[in-house]
């Protein structure tokens, strides 16, 4: 079947969001058959085993860390935060695109979101899972991590509610649970579809329980749509608050390079930027392997590249404003950091990688060729994620040289740091591959609402 080009920009014509044989049954078949294959494609197994081994590496290194102590990391005076927090902010940032697509684009009635929102929300939850690992093990004595929660205890002590680190606990855990609820609520009708198509006993039982007895009753749909709208309205400010709170971890501190008011919007823009890059990285191979090219069309991909381009410009603007503020303030510590140490200091390669990958390379998306060629966008998206990881690393390295030159130091990651970063990708991809295999990758019920209902067989 020829793939229709729906990336034209003729305002007189409404571009179809779904191409090919766009009827209800074919959408059900296309999405459900992915999970109904008796055996997944061999490439799935290869990817799954690779991810699982990386996950095993993460598990082993965490056991080693707990048994030995946080000294196995490179964290030491003056950089006590190091890679674990770099990785945490990196993953939390990636986790922002899902809720942006499912909530904000929903409120703005961007109907193209329906093809990619399920996948993006799943990615959000898995990314937040990866993010949760790092502060969890960074507390040192992992078995006392529950001290983060405000619970009555025999010490008679409560957390300090005026600390951004505590706000972070509330923000990230609220974000994780609300995203999971939103994801699951959206999936109930599709799980019912899988239940109704199930042929084996295990599938009937599993999808039967998971779909909670959903029938698609008009009354149920009425309340469901209301609840979905409310959740979207709640998740929209939530997604903006989460990365703002993460940025407070830095902005409330007095370290040069951290103590700036631009951090919350700058972090949120960066989070959406990296999140969309990750969605593109996942969606391009997924639509090719699982035959979803008619559902996730070139227009969807092009829209995402446009978001990446826009957020890249915002991030670049933030980088520029940081430099300007440092120069305009004439504060010696700020000018030293932004105009001396970052671009020309010991971590200058990380800084220039960040600028290149986040600001310069995404400008290629001004060209239509780059916006419509899948392999090009995947490469650019991968570079964006490299750049966004470097951005957090550069911010963290502000700690190496603050006010007192006698306290300056450097940070060198250990092999365990590297294994944990790579291992967290193992966790992410293991969860994502399981999702592809067992859950509906595209929100069928939502896609069906955007079909042109006039011409059904």
């Amino acid at each position, binding site marked *: 079947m020829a793939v229709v080009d729906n990336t034209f920009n003729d305002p007189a014509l409404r571009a179809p969001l779904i191409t090919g044989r766009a009827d209800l049954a074919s959408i059900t078949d296309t999405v459900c058959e992915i999970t109904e294959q008796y055996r997944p494609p061999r490439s799935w197994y290869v990817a799954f085993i690779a991810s699982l081994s990386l996950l095993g590496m993460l598990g082993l290194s965490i056991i080693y860390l707990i048994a030995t102590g946080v000294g196995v990391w490179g964290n030491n005076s003056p950089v006590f935060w190091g890679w674990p927090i770099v990785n945490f902010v990196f993953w939390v940032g990636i986790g922002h695109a899902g809720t942006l697509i499912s909530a904000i684009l929903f409120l703005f009635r961007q109907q193209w979101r329906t093809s990619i929102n399920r996948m993006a929300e799943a990615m959000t939850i898995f990314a937040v899972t990866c993010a949760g690992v790092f502060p969890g093990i960074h507390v040192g004595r992992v078995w006392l991590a529950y001290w983060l929660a405000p619970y009555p205890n025999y010490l008679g002590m409560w957390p300090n509610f005026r600390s951004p680190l505590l706000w972070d606990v509330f923000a990230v855990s609220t974000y994780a649970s609300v995203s999971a609820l939103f994801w699951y609520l959206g999936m109930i009708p599709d799980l019912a579809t899988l239940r109704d198509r199930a042929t084996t006993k295990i599938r009937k039982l599993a999808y039967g329980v998971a779909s909670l007895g959903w029938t698609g009753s*008009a009354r149920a749909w009425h309340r469901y749509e209301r609840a979905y709208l409310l959740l979207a309205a709640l998740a929209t400010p939530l997604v903006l608050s989460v990365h703002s709170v993460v940025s407070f971890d830095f902005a409330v501190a007095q370290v040069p390079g951290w103590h700036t008011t631009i951090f919350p919007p700058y972090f949120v823009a960066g989070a959406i930027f990296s999140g969309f890059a990750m969605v593109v990285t996942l969606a391009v191979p997924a639509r090719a392997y699982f035959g979803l090219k008619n559902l996730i069309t070139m227009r969807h991909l092009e829209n995402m590249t446009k978001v990446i381009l826009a957020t890249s410009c915002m991030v670049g603007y933030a980088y520029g404003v940081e430099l300007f503020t440092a120069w305009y303030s004439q504060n010696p510590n700020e000018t030293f950091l932004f105009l001396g140490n970052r671009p020309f200091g010991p971590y200058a390669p990380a800084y220039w990688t960040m600028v290149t990958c986040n600001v310069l390379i995404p400008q290629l998306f001004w060209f239509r060729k780059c916006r419509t060629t899948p392999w090009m966008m995947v490469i650019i998206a991968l570079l964006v994620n490299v750049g966004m990881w470097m951005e957090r690393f550069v911010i963290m390295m502000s700690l190496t040289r603050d006010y007192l030159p006698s306290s300056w130091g450097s940070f060198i990651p250990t092999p365990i740091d590297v294994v944990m970063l790579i291992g967290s990708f193992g966790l992410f991809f293991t969860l994502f591959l399981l999702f592809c295999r067992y859950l509906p990758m595209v929100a069928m019920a939502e896609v069906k609402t955007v079909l042109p209902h006039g011409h059904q067989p």
Partner: protein
Amino acid sequence: MIEHEVQTDQPQVLSGLLAEFTDQQGLLEAAQGVREAGLRRTDCFSPYPVHGMERALGIRNTPLPWLVLFAGFAGCVVALLMQWWTNAVDYPFLISGKPLFSLPANIPVTFELIVLFSAFTAFFAVLALNGLPRFHNPLFQHERFRRASSDRFFILVEASDPQFDAIRLRELFQSHGAVSVEQVMADPTPARIPLAVHLTGVIVLCLAFIPPLWIARDRSTTSDVPRIHPVPDMDFQPKFKPQAETSLFADGRTMRLPVAGTIARGELNDDEHFVRGIVANAFATTFPAQAMPLDQVMMARGRERFNIYCATCHGLAGDGNGITSQRALARADSPNWRPPLSLHSQGVLEMPIGKLFFTITNGVDRQNDGNLSMPAYDVQIPPRDRWAIVLYVLALQRSRNAELNDLPEGARESLALPDIAQ
């Protein structure tokens, strides 16, 4: 076969009529028609929300938004009260002199809890209002109904509706283009949970009580088995303790002696008068400057120290009848006990105060046989306290030998001693 007969014995109760349509337009029109015919107990089923259905079926607005609004307020109140009570009341947490409760710093957590409460309420309220989870539904018996979640549209009219007329309804559905009309029978199988599930539940519930009971028992009773330390924290640290043997030093002592020829600060002890009670090779007759002033504080200190260290043998009044001495004299197994002197005996009364101090400091070997009758107290009692004891001993002695002249001028009349005066 038997099961089949049992089923046929039961009367098949008609619970409704289910019509199938291929597109949403047919469904909408049928729903409209059914409603115009005065039927109310109806429902439609579609793979996606069909807009316009609310009006066609006459669905009233859901109270869900109000519930969510209420939950949001509750989250706000809970968050503010929690932060105020924990950080300003129960455990006042003073940070950099800032107010204990300040709204700006409490906004992030308040916001997160508003969202958390509202989102959970929205999720669980939509399930509860929709009657989910519900795994037992007569519609699931219909093979055709499975397409309701994929590409077909259904309308159900319940037989309990007062206007229900199967024949008229069938015609109505077919006039709107229904591709099939089926009778829905009430499910004859009881909607009860099987006994095995109940039994498993009871067993699991009973077993679930074991760990908390075990913990409660262990917390309320004593045990001679050492605690299990799953996480050692810093409870066990390899180290050599004082008074214990060590392999670290050649002499095997954990505690180290001072380097030869050194004296610790404040331990030079070169003042013969103060630390030994000797002035120019003779016993001192005056108190040293370090024991001054000889006031009530010094006297009280001396009395307290005397009662602790000396009174066990010499007695509280210094008569040499302390409780240790009385006990030793009463027992047959202490023939070598040397009874302490009375501090009021003539020899002691004549001693210069330097000698009293020297005796407390070094003990005394009254029989000159190398065994101390009274042990040395220089280790237990610091020099100034020893001088305080000397002062108190002098007071005890004077108390037995006082004259009227010892009283200050104004206090003599206060002594009501008419007999002695005569």
